[in-house]
Protein backbone atom coordinates (compact mmCIF):
# COMPACT_ATOMS: atom_id res chain seq x y z
CA UNK A 1 0.00 0.00 0.00
CA UNK A 2 1.44 3.39 -0.94
CA UNK A 3 1.58 6.19 1.60
CA UNK A 4 -0.99 8.08 -0.47
CA UNK A 5 -3.48 5.23 -0.11
CA UNK A 6 -2.74 5.06 3.60
CA UNK A 7 -3.54 8.72 3.98
CA UNK A 8 -6.78 8.30 2.03
CA UNK A 9 -7.77 5.39 4.24
CA UNK A 10 -6.72 6.93 7.56
CA UNK A 11 -9.89 8.99 8.28
CA UNK A 12 -12.10 5.92 7.87
CA UNK A 13 -9.89 3.66 9.97
CA UNK A 14 -9.56 6.21 12.78
CA UNK A 15 -13.29 7.00 12.87
CA UNK A 16 -14.21 3.33 12.91
CA UNK A 17 -11.57 2.68 15.55
CA UNK A 18 -12.95 5.47 17.74
CA UNK A 19 -16.41 3.88 17.80
CA UNK A 20 -14.97 0.39 18.31
CA UNK A 21 -12.96 1.51 21.35
CA UNK A 22 -16.06 3.28 22.69
CA UNK A 23 -18.19 0.16 22.21
CA UNK A 24 -15.54 -2.10 23.78
CA UNK A 25 -15.11 0.22 26.78
CA UNK A 26 -18.87 0.30 27.43
CA UNK A 27 -19.06 -3.51 27.36
CA UNK A 28 -15.81 -4.17 29.21
CA UNK A 29 -16.55 -1.86 32.13
CA UNK A 30 -20.29 -2.49 32.09
CA UNK A 31 -21.08 1.23 31.80
CA UNK A 32 -24.78 1.86 32.21
CA UNK A 33 -26.56 3.26 29.15
CA UNK A 34 -27.91 5.87 31.57
CA UNK A 35 -24.38 7.34 31.86
CA UNK A 36 -22.78 6.63 28.52
CA UNK A 37 -24.69 4.58 25.95
CA UNK A 38 -22.57 2.48 23.60
CA UNK A 39 -22.55 3.31 19.88
CA UNK A 40 -24.73 0.22 19.32
CA UNK A 41 -27.38 1.49 21.76
CA UNK A 42 -27.21 4.95 20.18
CA UNK A 43 -27.72 3.34 16.78
CA UNK A 44 -30.77 1.53 18.06
CA UNK A 45 -32.12 4.79 19.51
CA UNK A 46 -31.53 6.57 16.22
CA UNK A 47 -33.56 3.95 14.39
CA UNK A 48 -36.29 3.95 17.03
CA UNK A 49 -36.67 7.76 16.97
CA UNK A 50 -35.95 8.18 13.25
CA UNK A 51 -39.16 10.06 12.46
CA UNK A 52 -38.70 12.49 15.36
CA UNK A 53 -35.00 12.94 14.58
CA UNK A 54 -35.58 13.68 10.91
CA UNK A 55 -38.53 15.97 11.67
CA UNK A 56 -36.51 18.03 14.16
CA UNK A 57 -33.36 17.93 12.02
CA UNK A 58 -35.33 19.43 9.18
CA UNK A 59 -36.51 22.30 11.38
CA UNK A 60 -33.02 22.92 12.77
CA UNK A 61 -31.69 22.92 9.27
CA UNK A 62 -34.06 25.50 7.85
CA UNK A 63 -33.88 27.77 10.88
CA UNK A 64 -30.09 27.71 10.76
CA UNK A 65 -30.16 28.35 7.06
CA UNK A 66 -32.64 31.24 7.35
CA UNK A 67 -30.50 32.90 10.02
CA UNK A 68 -27.40 32.27 7.95
CA UNK A 69 -28.90 33.84 4.82
CA UNK A 70 -29.89 36.92 6.83
CA UNK A 71 -26.36 37.09 8.20
CA UNK A 72 -24.85 36.82 4.71
CA UNK A 73 -26.99 39.63 3.29
CA UNK A 74 -26.60 41.91 6.28
CA UNK A 75 -22.92 41.02 6.84
CA UNK A 76 -22.03 41.62 3.21
CA UNK A 77 -23.75 45.02 3.11
CA UNK A 78 -22.30 46.16 6.42
CA UNK A 79 -18.86 44.83 5.46
CA UNK A 80 -18.98 46.81 2.21
CA UNK A 81 -20.00 49.95 4.10
CA UNK A 82 -17.20 49.46 6.62
CA UNK A 83 -14.62 48.67 3.98
CA UNK A 84 -15.44 51.59 1.72
CA UNK A 85 -15.78 54.38 4.26
CA UNK A 86 -13.24 55.15 6.96
CA UNK A 87 -15.82 57.16 8.91
CA UNK A 88 -18.35 54.32 8.98
CA UNK A 89 -15.55 51.96 9.97
CA UNK A 90 -14.30 54.12 12.83
CA UNK A 91 -17.83 54.86 14.00
CA UNK A 92 -19.36 51.40 14.02
CA UNK A 93 -16.42 49.18 14.88
CA UNK A 94 -16.53 49.66 18.68
CA UNK A 95 -20.28 49.03 18.64
CA UNK A 96 -19.82 45.88 16.59
CA UNK A 97 -17.08 44.53 18.83
CA UNK A 98 -19.14 45.29 21.92
CA UNK A 99 -22.17 43.59 20.45
CA UNK A 100 -20.17 40.58 19.40
CA UNK A 101 -18.76 40.25 22.92
CA UNK A 102 -22.24 39.51 24.33
CA UNK A 103 -22.77 35.74 24.65
CA UNK A 104 -25.77 35.21 22.39
CA UNK A 105 -27.42 32.76 24.79
CA UNK A 106 -28.06 35.83 26.96
CA UNK A 107 -30.03 37.44 24.14
CA UNK A 108 -32.45 34.52 23.77
CA UNK A 109 -34.68 35.51 26.75
CA UNK A 110 -35.10 39.00 25.26
CA UNK A 111 -36.03 37.54 21.88
CA UNK A 112 -38.58 35.30 23.60
CA UNK A 113 -40.17 38.30 25.34
CA UNK A 114 -40.37 40.12 22.00
CA UNK A 115 -41.41 37.32 19.69
CA UNK A 116 -42.64 34.50 21.93
CA UNK A 117 -41.56 30.88 21.73
CA UNK A 118 -41.25 29.60 18.17
CA UNK A 119 -39.07 29.72 15.10
CA UNK A 120 -38.28 33.44 15.13
CA UNK A 121 -35.95 33.50 18.18
CA UNK A 122 -33.99 30.60 16.69
CA UNK A 123 -33.59 32.28 13.30
CA UNK A 124 -32.64 35.59 14.92
CA UNK A 125 -30.13 34.00 17.28
CA UNK A 126 -28.53 32.20 14.35
CA UNK A 127 -28.37 35.51 12.51
CA UNK A 128 -27.01 37.54 15.43
CA UNK A 129 -24.27 35.08 16.26
CA UNK A 130 -23.02 34.60 12.70
CA UNK A 131 -22.94 37.96 10.93
CA UNK A 132 -19.88 39.37 12.69
CA UNK A 133 -17.19 37.25 11.01
CA UNK A 134 -18.72 38.07 7.61
CA UNK A 135 -18.59 41.81 8.27
CA UNK A 136 -14.99 41.71 9.48
CA UNK A 137 -13.81 39.56 6.58
CA UNK A 138 -15.49 41.58 3.84
CA UNK A 139 -14.18 44.83 5.33
CA UNK A 140 -10.68 43.35 5.52
CA UNK A 141 -10.88 42.23 1.90
CA UNK A 142 -11.77 45.73 0.77
CA UNK A 143 -9.05 47.27 2.91
CA UNK A 144 -6.37 45.19 1.18
CA UNK A 145 -6.83 46.67 -2.31
CA UNK A 146 -3.35 47.54 -3.61
CA UNK A 147 -3.04 51.35 -3.83
CA UNK A 148 -1.37 51.00 -7.24
CA UNK A 149 -4.41 49.28 -8.74
CA UNK A 150 -6.56 52.04 -7.33
CA UNK A 151 -4.22 54.61 -8.92
CA UNK A 152 -4.35 52.88 -12.30
CA UNK A 153 -8.14 53.00 -12.30
CA UNK A 154 -8.45 56.48 -10.82
CA UNK A 155 -6.10 57.89 -13.43
CA UNK A 156 -8.55 56.56 -16.02
CA UNK A 157 -11.35 58.48 -14.36
CA UNK A 158 -12.91 55.50 -12.54
CA UNK A 159 -15.58 56.31 -9.96
CA UNK A 160 -15.57 54.92 -6.47
CA UNK A 161 -18.30 52.51 -7.56
CA UNK A 162 -16.18 51.32 -10.50
CA UNK A 163 -13.26 50.58 -8.22
CA UNK A 164 -15.58 48.80 -5.81
CA UNK A 165 -17.16 46.53 -8.42
CA UNK A 166 -14.06 45.87 -10.54
CA UNK A 167 -11.53 45.42 -7.75
CA UNK A 168 -12.97 45.69 -4.25
CA UNK A 169 -15.71 43.09 -4.48
CA UNK A 170 -13.73 40.38 -6.31
CA UNK A 171 -10.77 41.07 -4.01
CA UNK A 172 -12.90 40.50 -0.89
CA UNK A 173 -14.60 37.34 -2.20
CA UNK A 174 -12.03 34.83 -0.81
CA UNK A 175 -12.37 36.52 2.58
CA UNK A 176 -16.15 36.45 2.27
CA UNK A 177 -16.39 32.78 1.33
CA UNK A 178 -13.80 31.90 3.94
CA UNK A 179 -15.96 33.58 6.58
CA UNK A 180 -19.01 31.59 5.45
CA UNK A 181 -17.47 28.40 6.83
CA UNK A 182 -17.15 30.06 10.23
CA UNK A 183 -20.55 31.74 9.98
CA UNK A 184 -22.52 28.58 9.14
CA UNK A 185 -21.05 26.79 12.16
CA UNK A 186 -21.90 29.71 14.40
CA UNK A 187 -25.42 30.03 12.99
CA UNK A 188 -25.92 26.38 13.80
CA UNK A 189 -24.80 26.91 17.40
CA UNK A 190 -27.18 29.86 17.62
CA UNK A 191 -30.23 28.07 16.37
CA UNK A 192 -29.66 25.01 18.59
CA UNK A 193 -29.18 27.22 21.68
CA UNK A 194 -32.44 29.03 20.94
CA UNK A 195 -34.30 25.80 20.23
CA UNK A 196 -33.12 24.40 23.52
CA UNK A 197 -34.47 27.39 25.41
CA UNK A 198 -37.36 28.71 23.43
CA UNK A 199 -38.85 26.53 20.74
CA UNK A 200 -41.26 23.67 20.33
CA UNK A 201 -39.26 21.97 17.61
CA UNK A 202 -35.71 21.52 16.34
CA UNK A 203 -32.98 19.17 17.54
CA UNK A 204 -32.23 21.51 20.45
CA UNK A 205 -35.81 21.22 21.62
CA UNK A 206 -35.76 17.43 21.19
CA UNK A 207 -32.66 17.33 23.39
CA UNK A 208 -34.27 19.52 26.04
CA UNK A 209 -37.18 17.08 26.24
CA UNK A 210 -34.98 13.96 26.10
CA UNK A 211 -32.91 15.43 28.92
CA UNK A 212 -36.04 16.07 31.03
CA UNK A 213 -37.06 12.40 30.45
CA UNK A 214 -33.53 11.16 31.26
CA UNK A 215 -33.59 9.51 27.84
CA UNK A 216 -29.81 9.41 27.49
CA UNK A 217 -29.66 7.21 24.33
CA UNK A 218 -31.95 9.69 22.55
CA UNK A 219 -29.77 12.58 23.75
CA UNK A 220 -26.75 10.93 22.19
CA UNK A 221 -28.66 10.05 19.05
CA UNK A 222 -29.55 13.75 18.74
CA UNK A 223 -25.88 14.67 19.24
CA UNK A 224 -24.88 12.39 16.38
CA UNK A 225 -27.59 13.93 14.21
CA UNK A 226 -26.21 17.40 15.09
CA UNK A 227 -22.68 16.31 14.17
CA UNK A 228 -23.82 14.92 10.81
CA UNK A 229 -25.81 18.07 9.98
CA UNK A 230 -22.94 20.32 11.04
CA UNK A 231 -20.39 18.49 8.92
CA UNK A 232 -22.77 18.53 5.94
CA UNK A 233 -23.34 22.29 6.17
CA UNK A 234 -19.63 22.95 6.56
CA UNK A 235 -18.89 20.75 3.55
CA UNK A 236 -21.41 22.61 1.40
CA UNK A 237 -19.95 26.04 2.22
CA UNK A 238 -16.40 24.75 1.74
CA UNK A 239 -17.41 23.41 -1.66
CA UNK A 240 -19.06 26.71 -2.63
CA UNK A 241 -15.92 28.57 -1.52
CA UNK A 242 -13.77 26.39 -3.71
CA UNK A 243 -16.04 26.82 -6.70
CA UNK A 244 -16.31 30.59 -6.38
CA UNK A 245 -12.76 31.61 -5.55
CA UNK A 246 -10.57 28.97 -7.16
CA UNK A 247 -8.19 31.72 -8.28
CA UNK A 248 -7.25 32.41 -4.67
CA UNK A 249 -6.50 28.75 -3.87
CA UNK A 250 -3.86 27.91 -6.42
CA UNK A 251 -1.42 26.81 -3.74
CA UNK A 252 -1.87 23.21 -2.65
CA UNK A 253 -0.86 24.34 0.81
CA UNK A 254 -3.95 26.50 1.32
CA UNK A 255 -6.47 24.23 -0.38
CA UNK A 256 -8.89 22.07 1.50
Amino acid at each position, binding site marked *: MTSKQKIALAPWVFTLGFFLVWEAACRLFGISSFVLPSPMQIGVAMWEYRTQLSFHSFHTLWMTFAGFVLAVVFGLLLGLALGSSKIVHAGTYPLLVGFNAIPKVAVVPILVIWFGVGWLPAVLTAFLISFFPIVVNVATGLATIEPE*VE*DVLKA*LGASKLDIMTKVGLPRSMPYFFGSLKVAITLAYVGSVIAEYNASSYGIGNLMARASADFNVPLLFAALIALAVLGVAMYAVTAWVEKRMTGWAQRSGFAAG
Partner: protein
Amino acid sequence: MGEAFIALDRVQHVYGGEGGVLAVEDLTLSVREGEFVAVVGPSGCGKSTLMKLATGLQFPRAGSVRVDGQAVSKPVKIAGMAFQNPTLLPWRTTLDNILLPLEIVEPHRSRLRREKAAYTEKAEALLASVGLAGFGPKFPWQLSGGMQQRASLCRALIHEPRLLMLDEPFGALDAFTREELWCVIRDLQAARKFTVILVTHDLREAVFLADKVFCMSARPGRIIAEREITLPRPRDLEVTYSPEFADIVHELRSHIKDARSGVH
Protein backbone atom coordinates in the same frame (compact mmCIF):
# COMPACT_ATOMS: atom_id res chain seq x y z
CA MET B 1 9.01 73.93 -29.94
CA GLY B 2 5.24 74.00 -29.39
CA GLU B 3 3.34 74.51 -26.17
CA ALA B 4 4.27 72.13 -23.37
CA PHE B 5 2.06 69.05 -23.09
CA ILE B 6 2.80 68.71 -19.40
CA ALA B 7 3.93 71.72 -17.40
CA LEU B 8 4.65 71.82 -13.69
CA ASP B 9 5.40 75.32 -12.44
CA ARG B 10 7.01 75.91 -9.02
CA VAL B 11 4.99 73.07 -7.53
CA GLN B 12 5.04 72.32 -3.83
CA HIS B 13 3.44 69.22 -2.33
CA VAL B 14 3.10 68.12 1.26
CA TYR B 15 1.93 64.76 2.57
CA GLY B 16 -0.03 64.53 5.78
CA GLY B 17 -1.59 67.95 6.33
CA GLU B 18 -0.05 70.65 8.55
CA GLY B 19 3.53 69.87 9.54
CA GLY B 20 3.55 66.91 7.14
CA VAL B 21 6.41 65.75 4.97
CA LEU B 22 7.44 68.18 2.27
CA ALA B 23 7.68 65.87 -0.76
CA VAL B 24 8.53 68.31 -3.54
CA GLU B 25 9.23 72.03 -3.54
CA ASP B 26 9.76 74.54 -6.31
CA LEU B 27 9.45 71.74 -8.86
CA THR B 28 9.37 73.02 -12.41
CA LEU B 29 9.53 70.96 -15.56
CA SER B 30 7.87 70.75 -18.94
CA VAL B 31 7.40 67.93 -21.40
CA ARG B 32 6.46 68.22 -25.06
CA GLU B 33 3.90 65.96 -26.67
CA GLY B 34 5.47 62.78 -28.00
CA GLU B 35 8.59 63.25 -25.92
CA PHE B 36 10.16 60.41 -23.90
CA VAL B 37 11.26 61.83 -20.59
CA ALA B 38 13.06 60.07 -17.74
CA VAL B 39 13.20 61.32 -14.16
CA VAL B 40 16.06 60.08 -12.00
CA GLY B 41 17.04 60.89 -8.44
CA PRO B 42 17.97 59.49 -5.07
CA SER B 43 15.35 57.34 -3.40
CA GLY B 44 12.60 59.17 -1.56
CA CYS B 45 13.08 62.31 -3.66
CA GLY B 46 9.44 62.62 -4.67
CA LYS B 47 9.57 60.95 -8.09
CA SER B 48 6.34 59.08 -7.47
CA THR B 49 4.76 62.29 -6.19
CA LEU B 50 5.64 63.85 -9.52
CA MET B 51 3.70 61.08 -11.28
CA LYS B 52 0.67 61.51 -9.07
CA LEU B 53 0.67 65.26 -9.62
CA ALA B 54 0.94 64.95 -13.39
CA THR B 55 -1.97 62.47 -13.57
CA GLY B 56 -4.27 64.37 -11.23
CA LEU B 57 -4.23 61.78 -8.45
CA GLN B 58 -2.82 64.43 -6.11
CA PHE B 59 -3.04 68.19 -6.25
CA PRO B 60 -0.22 70.59 -5.37
CA ARG B 61 -0.18 72.68 -2.21
CA ALA B 62 1.29 75.53 -4.26
CA GLY B 63 2.20 76.14 -7.89
CA SER B 64 0.38 74.89 -10.96
CA VAL B 65 0.13 71.65 -12.93
CA ARG B 66 -1.12 71.86 -16.52
CA VAL B 67 -1.68 68.90 -18.80
CA ASP B 68 -2.66 69.38 -22.44
CA GLY B 69 -3.29 73.08 -21.87
CA GLN B 70 -5.69 72.50 -18.95
CA ALA B 71 -5.06 73.11 -15.25
CA VAL B 72 -5.33 69.71 -13.58
CA SER B 73 -8.21 69.56 -11.14
CA LYS B 74 -9.21 65.90 -11.45
CA PRO B 75 -7.65 62.66 -12.78
CA VAL B 76 -6.52 63.37 -16.34
CA LYS B 77 -8.09 60.30 -18.02
CA ILE B 78 -5.53 60.35 -20.85
CA ALA B 79 -2.87 58.46 -18.92
CA GLY B 80 -1.87 54.83 -18.73
CA MET B 81 0.22 53.72 -15.79
CA ALA B 82 2.55 50.85 -14.96
CA PHE B 83 4.43 50.24 -11.74
CA GLN B 84 7.31 48.16 -10.41
CA ASN B 85 4.70 45.68 -9.17
CA PRO B 86 2.64 44.46 -12.17
CA THR B 87 -0.58 44.66 -10.06
CA LEU B 88 -2.57 42.41 -12.38
CA LEU B 89 -5.85 41.22 -10.86
CA PRO B 90 -5.43 37.53 -9.99
CA TRP B 91 -9.05 36.56 -10.67
CA ARG B 92 -8.93 37.78 -14.27
CA THR B 93 -7.13 36.16 -17.17
CA THR B 94 -4.31 38.13 -18.74
CA LEU B 95 -6.63 39.14 -21.57
CA ASP B 96 -9.36 40.35 -19.20
CA ASN B 97 -6.76 42.24 -17.20
CA ILE B 98 -5.68 44.07 -20.31
CA LEU B 99 -9.27 44.90 -21.21
CA LEU B 100 -9.89 46.40 -17.76
CA PRO B 101 -9.19 50.06 -18.71
CA LEU B 102 -11.73 49.75 -21.52
CA GLU B 103 -14.38 48.95 -18.93
CA ILE B 104 -13.68 52.37 -17.38
CA VAL B 105 -12.80 54.79 -20.18
CA GLU B 106 -15.36 56.22 -22.58
CA PRO B 107 -16.13 55.73 -25.42
CA HIS B 108 -14.90 52.11 -25.07
CA ARG B 109 -16.93 51.53 -21.94
CA SER B 110 -20.28 51.70 -23.69
CA ARG B 111 -19.00 49.87 -26.80
CA LEU B 112 -17.11 47.07 -25.13
CA ARG B 113 -20.01 44.67 -24.81
CA ARG B 114 -21.18 45.05 -28.39
CA GLU B 115 -17.75 45.06 -30.00
CA LYS B 116 -16.10 42.55 -27.73
CA ALA B 117 -14.57 40.59 -30.60
CA ALA B 118 -12.88 43.64 -32.11
CA TYR B 119 -11.49 44.72 -28.74
CA THR B 120 -10.28 41.22 -27.97
CA GLU B 121 -8.48 41.15 -31.29
CA LYS B 122 -6.86 44.47 -30.51
CA ALA B 123 -5.74 43.24 -27.10
CA GLU B 124 -4.28 40.10 -28.63
CA ALA B 125 -2.39 42.14 -31.20
CA LEU B 126 -0.97 44.25 -28.39
CA LEU B 127 0.00 41.11 -26.47
CA ALA B 128 1.76 39.81 -29.57
CA SER B 129 3.65 43.10 -29.94
CA VAL B 130 5.23 42.62 -26.49
CA GLY B 131 6.00 38.95 -27.19
CA LEU B 132 3.07 37.43 -25.33
CA ALA B 133 1.09 36.06 -28.27
CA GLY B 134 -1.29 33.33 -27.11
CA PHE B 135 -0.94 34.08 -23.40
CA GLY B 136 -4.32 35.88 -23.14
CA PRO B 137 -6.25 32.99 -21.54
CA LYS B 138 -3.55 32.37 -18.91
CA PHE B 139 -3.94 33.72 -15.40
CA PRO B 140 -1.31 36.20 -14.17
CA TRP B 141 0.14 33.73 -11.68
CA GLN B 142 0.87 31.36 -14.54
CA LEU B 143 3.22 33.96 -16.04
CA SER B 144 6.79 34.80 -15.03
CA GLY B 145 7.61 38.19 -13.49
CA GLY B 146 8.84 39.59 -16.80
CA MET B 147 5.74 38.34 -18.63
CA GLN B 148 3.49 39.90 -16.01
CA GLN B 149 5.29 43.19 -16.47
CA ARG B 150 4.76 42.96 -20.24
CA ALA B 151 1.06 42.35 -19.64
CA SER B 152 1.00 45.31 -17.27
CA LEU B 153 2.42 47.49 -20.08
CA CYS B 154 -0.33 46.23 -22.38
CA ARG B 155 -2.94 47.20 -19.80
CA ALA B 156 -1.41 50.67 -19.62
CA LEU B 157 -1.59 51.07 -23.41
CA ILE B 158 -4.81 49.33 -24.49
CA HIS B 159 -6.92 52.50 -24.42
CA GLU B 160 -4.30 54.31 -26.51
CA PRO B 161 -3.41 56.90 -23.89
CA ARG B 162 -1.57 60.03 -25.01
CA LEU B 163 0.51 59.84 -21.85
CA LEU B 164 2.27 56.80 -20.40
CA MET B 165 3.47 56.95 -16.81
CA LEU B 166 6.06 54.38 -15.81
CA ASP B 167 7.10 54.16 -12.16
CA GLU B 168 10.24 51.97 -12.08
CA PRO B 169 8.46 49.36 -14.19
CA PHE B 170 11.60 47.27 -14.75
CA GLY B 171 13.05 47.61 -11.26
CA ALA B 172 12.18 44.11 -10.05
CA LEU B 173 13.37 42.25 -13.14
CA ASP B 174 16.67 40.53 -13.87
CA ALA B 175 19.13 42.39 -16.09
CA PHE B 176 18.42 40.45 -19.29
CA THR B 177 14.66 40.68 -19.04
CA ARG B 178 15.00 44.36 -18.21
CA GLU B 179 16.97 45.05 -21.40
CA GLU B 180 14.45 43.09 -23.45
CA LEU B 181 11.66 45.22 -22.04
CA TRP B 182 13.61 48.41 -22.75
CA CYS B 183 13.46 47.41 -26.40
CA VAL B 184 9.74 46.58 -26.14
CA ILE B 185 8.87 49.99 -24.76
CA ARG B 186 11.28 51.72 -27.19
CA ASP B 187 9.53 50.10 -30.16
CA LEU B 188 6.03 50.76 -28.87
CA GLN B 189 6.82 54.41 -28.32
CA ALA B 190 8.48 54.75 -31.71
CA ALA B 191 5.42 53.25 -33.39
CA ARG B 192 2.73 55.15 -31.51
CA LYS B 193 4.44 58.40 -30.51
CA PHE B 194 2.79 58.72 -27.12
CA THR B 195 4.39 60.85 -24.42
CA VAL B 196 6.26 58.93 -21.72
CA ILE B 197 7.36 59.92 -18.25
CA LEU B 198 9.63 57.21 -16.89
CA VAL B 199 10.60 57.34 -13.23
CA THR B 200 13.66 55.22 -12.55
CA HIS B 201 16.75 54.60 -10.44
CA ASP B 202 18.62 53.16 -13.36
CA LEU B 203 20.70 55.78 -15.18
CA ARG B 204 21.51 53.46 -18.11
CA GLU B 205 17.81 52.82 -18.57
CA ALA B 206 17.11 56.55 -18.54
CA VAL B 207 19.83 57.39 -21.07
CA PHE B 208 18.97 54.50 -23.37
CA LEU B 209 15.27 55.27 -23.58
CA ALA B 210 14.76 58.98 -23.06
CA ASP B 211 14.96 62.09 -25.19
CA LYS B 212 15.54 64.11 -22.05
CA VAL B 213 16.56 63.19 -18.49
CA PHE B 214 15.64 65.22 -15.41
CA CYS B 215 17.66 64.78 -12.21
CA MET B 216 15.88 65.45 -8.96
CA SER B 217 17.40 66.50 -5.66
CA ALA B 218 16.93 64.72 -2.36
CA ARG B 219 13.70 65.53 -0.53
CA PRO B 220 12.13 68.01 -0.89
CA GLY B 221 12.51 67.14 -4.56
CA ARG B 222 13.13 69.63 -7.33
CA ILE B 223 14.89 69.51 -10.68
CA ILE B 224 18.63 70.10 -10.36
CA ALA B 225 19.67 69.16 -13.88
CA GLU B 226 18.13 68.63 -17.28
CA ARG B 227 19.99 66.71 -19.96
CA GLU B 228 18.96 66.27 -23.59
CA ILE B 229 20.00 62.86 -24.88
CA THR B 230 20.94 63.37 -28.50
CA LEU B 231 22.02 59.81 -29.26
CA PRO B 232 20.52 59.02 -32.68
CA ARG B 233 17.38 56.88 -32.91
CA PRO B 234 16.59 54.09 -33.44
CA ARG B 235 18.93 53.08 -30.64
CA ASP B 236 20.29 49.58 -30.44
CA LEU B 237 21.35 47.97 -27.14
CA GLU B 238 24.90 48.17 -28.52
CA VAL B 239 24.78 51.92 -27.96
CA THR B 240 24.90 51.32 -24.21
CA TYR B 241 28.53 50.18 -24.63
CA SER B 242 29.61 53.28 -26.57
CA PRO B 243 31.83 55.94 -24.99
CA GLU B 244 29.25 58.73 -25.59
CA PHE B 245 26.68 56.71 -23.69
CA ALA B 246 29.10 56.08 -20.83
CA ASP B 247 29.95 59.79 -20.68
CA ILE B 248 26.31 60.80 -20.33
CA VAL B 249 25.66 58.17 -17.64
CA HIS B 250 28.77 59.37 -15.84
CA GLU B 251 27.66 62.97 -15.99
CA LEU B 252 24.22 62.10 -14.59
CA ARG B 253 25.85 59.99 -11.92
CA SER B 254 27.73 63.02 -10.63
CA HIS B 255 24.46 64.99 -10.39
CA ILE B 256 22.91 62.22 -8.33
CA LYS B 257 25.97 62.06 -6.13
CA ASP B 258 25.71 65.81 -5.50
CA ALA B 259 21.99 65.45 -4.80
CA ARG B 260 22.62 62.73 -2.25
CA SER B 261 25.31 64.67 -0.45
CA GLY B 262 23.15 67.80 -0.47
CA VAL B 263 25.47 70.08 -2.51
CA HIS B 264 22.50 71.57 -4.35
